[in-house]
């Protein structure tokens, strides 16, 4: 497959320079590399600039509600586990409105890939501080600078029990693509937080901020939880990107008595017979 075959007819409407373009590239290239058929891919998004993604792809796209992409994606995957399900959304979407779903979806180890475009702001609603906004960031809602400790997506996902936890950067598409390939291949809940500059509302923390700071982590022991947690806490002059954690654990479908029997969509419908009603006599 070619990455282009995964590109939709609609031209992305993101601002020139927006970090989301990198994720679009990474996702289409990863799908091509993995040789997945477009019809077998479902991309589910929330609401935000980033969440406009499905429209720009040639797959089954579902642009849902702010913060609700993970329940929708779980429903899709559980209904038809033959599909490759990717959830894609913003940091406001996933770490504010959808915090709860992220935790419990990760805990369940649902076999989907979740990529977050982390730009530290609400892009689409014109630039309020998001949960990952650094202390001091001035926005429409924080005119005197943000005062809340930023949300840490990595330690959150780890604590939740995600079996694949990674971080990417829109300024390093090649590496992002590699991470994405691994995430999609991973059996279980795979999570990628991507530093994705918003060139309009968060100029202070754009490519110029991250480029000198991020460094690729490649030789870490991805099965070492404590090391992953430590990497997640690392912040400052050096900020790691890469796959921090990657372990093999049963997915939800392995342990559920019904899902075990194969994709629900292929399981026969049970029409009631008289003997099914015997318990009511």
């Amino acid at each position: 497959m070619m990455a282009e075959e995964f590109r939709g007819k609609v031209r992305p409407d993101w601002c020139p320079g927006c970090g989301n373009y990198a994720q679009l590239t990474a996702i289409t290239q990863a799908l091509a590399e993995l040789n997945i058929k477009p019809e077998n891919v479902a991309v589910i998004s929330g609401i935000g600039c980033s969440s406009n993604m499905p429209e720009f792809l040639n797959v089954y796209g579902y642009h849902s509600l702010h913060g609700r992409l993970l329940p929708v994606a779980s429903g899709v995957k559980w209904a038809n586990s033959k599909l490759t399900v990717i959830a894609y959304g913003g940091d406001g979407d996933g770490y504010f409105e959808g915090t709860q779903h992220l935790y419990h979806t990760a805990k369940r180890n649902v076999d989907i890939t979740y990529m977050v475009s982390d730009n530290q702001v609400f892009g689409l609603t014109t630039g309020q501080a998001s949960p990952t906004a650094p202390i001091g960031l001035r926005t429409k809602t924080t005119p005197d600078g943000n005062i809340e400790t930023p949300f840490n997506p990595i330690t959150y996902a780890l604590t939740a029990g995600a079996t694949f936890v990674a971080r990417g950067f829109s300024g390093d598409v090649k590496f992002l693509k590699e991470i994405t390939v691994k995430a999609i291949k991973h059996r279980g809940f795979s999570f990628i937080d991507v530093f994705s500059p918003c060139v309009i509302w968060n100029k202070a923390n754009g490519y110029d901020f991250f480029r000198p700071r991020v460094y690729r982590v490649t030789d870490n022991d991805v099965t070492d939880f404590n090391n992953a947690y430590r990497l997640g806490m690392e912040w400052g002059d050096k900020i790691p990107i890469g796959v921090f954690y990657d372990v093999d654990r049963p997915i939800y479908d392995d342990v559920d008595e019904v899902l075990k029997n194969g994709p629900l969509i292929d399981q026969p419908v049970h029409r009631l017979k008289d003997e099914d009603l015997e318990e009511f006599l």
Partner: protein
Amino acid sequence: MKDDEVIIRIGGAAGDGVQSAGEIIIRTFSRCGLYVTSYNYYQDLIRGGESWYQVRASDHKVKSQGDGLDLLIALNKDALERHTNPSINEGGASPLEGIAIFDAGIKGYKEYNNVSYCPVPMVDIARKYSDNSLLKNTVGLGAAIAAINGDFETFAGVIRDQFGKKGEIAELNVKAAKEGYDYFINNYKSMKKTYKISKKPKYVIAGGAAIALGAVNAGVKMYVAYPMTPASSALHFMAQHAKKFGVFVKMPEDEISAINTIIGANYAGIRAMTGSAGGGFALMTEAVGLAGMTEVPAVIYEAQRPGPSTGLPTKTEQGDLNQVLGASQGDFPRIVLAPRNIEEAFYSVQEAFNLADKYQCPVFVISDLYLSEHYDTIDKLNLDYPIDRGYIVKESENYKRYEFTENGISPRALPGTPKLMHNEDSDEHDEYGNVVSDAITDPVIRSKMVEKRMRKLEDYKKNIPKTETYKLDDAEYAVILWGSTQGAVEEAIDILRSKGIKIGAIEPTHIYPLNEDIKDLVKNKKLVFTVENNYSGQFRRLLRAELLIDSIGINKYNGEAFYPGEIVKEISNFILEEKNIME
């Protein structure tokens, strides 16, 4: 108190085994071939508090818990005094006029007329067999079977099934029950009732289970819900039958997750369902609009209980109609069904799935605590309800997910279908599913897309089944009802007719949108009443808003279901008043 029926009530505290005793009686009657209905009065706590269970049986169909009380099994002194007190105040329940069975150890109770007190050494007998304090209930039940001239062997069979897993315990219970039975026979006089016992067993089923069963028979493959009384019983039933019926059942982190998960699953092509009660459903409303906009089928079971807010969690009300009609912003097609009884609940859910698939929109099945939690006997369920998955395509040239069609129904392509990849969007979109609010909003397409969606409802309106009626043909007065008040209203109508008042009922089950035929049905009626279990007359208002039909509201909102006698009284007053005015 009619001769051809019997009303039994078991009263005690929560945790005393009141409900399971009630269920044993129901099943005994059902296996005797009688029709039974029941009423469960319980509190929002796990132990203690007052609780009672009423069973009414006859050889003809009984439709409500009924007025009157023939037999009381009192599990404590409080219950004995409460249910014999002529001014009993449980939201409409009648005091006992008949036999009271209770433990001989209960002393010094206040005595009332019309009650024949029949103490039975329930505790003493029970102690002979086991330390389990619930065994005394079985003794009391045995005595009750004697009191109503019931069939002990059928009863013993029910007991054996109930305690089946524990063979020895079952026999122990049967023996204790027999002692209670014999004690009554030897010491007191049984009542005379004229109903005939056929021994052709009937089904006994509660509303929640009927809803779940209906979903199973409609081919549901996924049920996702967060517990909330009175919707939980369907969830429990589903969970317990998940493996048997091949339904994936999940209790997620909250109601928002529940509905969005089933929307995802329906989008992916299986039938999936969720259910909740008022407050839990409130959390789902945003996603109702998502299903509406993306045109994904979704069946939602809304089980009402008294509000506002947490309200009375274990009581009944029909106060969520406004919420269901107002769920989510903007205009989009939704369909609301309100089954009137347990049997209908089974079919309504199946119809809901077909409608959801046909019209690709959210479809609600509204119930209430009374309907969902009580048991009825049912002759037979027709299991052949056809499944229709609607307009799903596998191939298409120039595929348009939201094609402008005449009836507004557009072709669905399920994920996994080659070549038909497309986008479904909660933003307003064009026929292909692409957003119209990006580069330039197209106001023309916006209008057309709104109209396309709403045309589905116009199509549906043409296909709403005729509104059912009860004794309406010659009626001068009409009662409009919806949902679970059917039984009480129909029995009230029978009573009023026996007093010479020509009255009938109009019984819409497809409550939104409404069938316009109701306009004809109310024509020329002297007075039209709308009976509902809420304060403000939510359905009465709907009739005004939709059909400009005005009516007199008969409302009850104390948490209990209507009793036929209450309806008779209120309607009689209005008719009397009207006659006075006429004269």
